[in-house]
């Protein structure tokens, strides 16, 4: 973690100059479950994209391409709202272990 700035180096008025810089925060670390996409079933209806509270459904040219695991908090709304059951929530601990193996 970078050393916090002293008063001389901060913008005045408590202003935050860099719009959207919250994206640097790894809210994905909060997860207990992560979404798993079955690409075969997915129709790119983009309901999951619309209902994700964390803007963590990745869409490219109107196609659903996956999840932003750096930010996804694992709430499971995407899995619940998917009309074709293309998303399943799996335990984060195992999924993370599988990933590293």
């Amino acid at each position, binding site marked *: 973690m970078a050393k916090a700035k002293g008063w001389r180096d*901060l913008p005045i008025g408590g202003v*935050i100059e860099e*719009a*959207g810089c*919250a*994206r640097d925060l790894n809210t994905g670390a909060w997860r207990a479950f992560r979404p798993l996409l079955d690409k075969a079933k997915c129709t*790119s209806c983009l309901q999951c994209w619309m209902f994700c509270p964390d803007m963590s459904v990745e869409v490219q040219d*109107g196609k659903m391409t996956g999840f932003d695991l750096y930010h996804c908090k694992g*709430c499971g709304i995407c899995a619940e709202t998917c009309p074709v059951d293309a998303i399943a929530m799996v335990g984060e601990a195992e999924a993370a272990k599988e990933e590293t193996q």
Partner: protein
Amino acid sequence: MATQAATPTRLILKDLSKKPERLSPGHRMCPGCAAPIVVKQVLSAIDDPVIAFCATGCLEVATTIFPQTAWNVPFMHSAFENAAATCSGAEAAYRSLVRQGKLDEKNVRFVAFGGDGGTYDIGLQSLSGAMERGHRMLYVCYDNGAYMNTGIQRSSATPLGANTTTSPVGKVRPGRQGVRKDLTAIMAAHGIPYVAQASPHNWRDLMQKVRKAVAVDGPAFINVLTSCNRGWRHEAAKTIEIQKIAVDSCYWPLYEVEEGRYKINYRPKQKLPVTDFLRPQGRFSHLFRPGNEAIVEEFQRRVDAKWEHLLKMAGEAQA
């Protein structure tokens, strides 16, 4: 006068998904919170530049913890009870600078967000004043029915019987008593050009309403039921589902009041009993213990009365 707008983005998800994000990920709202979904929908509905204002509360606090901000639009929070007043001042500044030729007209839209705490209660005066003065601004209340950010204390928007930390269930009290304020009706009574109720599960309806709201040359108010899975005590994943049930039970009708004319935007094919809304939520679990039946009946009675009244106002009442 506003300049001619370019062709608006079609309200289809593929097109909307191509717009740049106005609220970034990395904010610290709880998993499954409906508030960022609401904000995303509101800001995405508007093609014009937006300046956002927010009252103190979950949304403001969790999106702007210094030195991070999740807002990709100009944003100001000043205090809890004055989002509407703050927004109205900025809108006045814009009007003044454009009128004086110091700034080009860019169709900048002024949108203020406030929770039910900062809107129904402590913020009511400043909201009323701003609406009465005719500023061209949209106020969106994200109503989760309690002061959630400070620990789930009751507000005047808290539904009957709800268990909150200042209307707790105890040996002699069964949760929130009294009559919930109808803020949407209060706003309609201000005679402003556009008032509506919405819910984020029906994103198209919500976004259409936002577009109508910013198109009026005057004040607009949209009240959005916004689930808080912590305060309501339901599974985070069920957020969108519970929103739909709220609307299908007519607890939260989707309607609009345009220039005083009421219109119901959605009539459930099958009106669900309020118990379908109450049962999945832990804050109402005590209502299903023996002895509390009367409260559930009263809840149903009130929902029915309001729904009948709304039908009448919209000229759709049964004979």
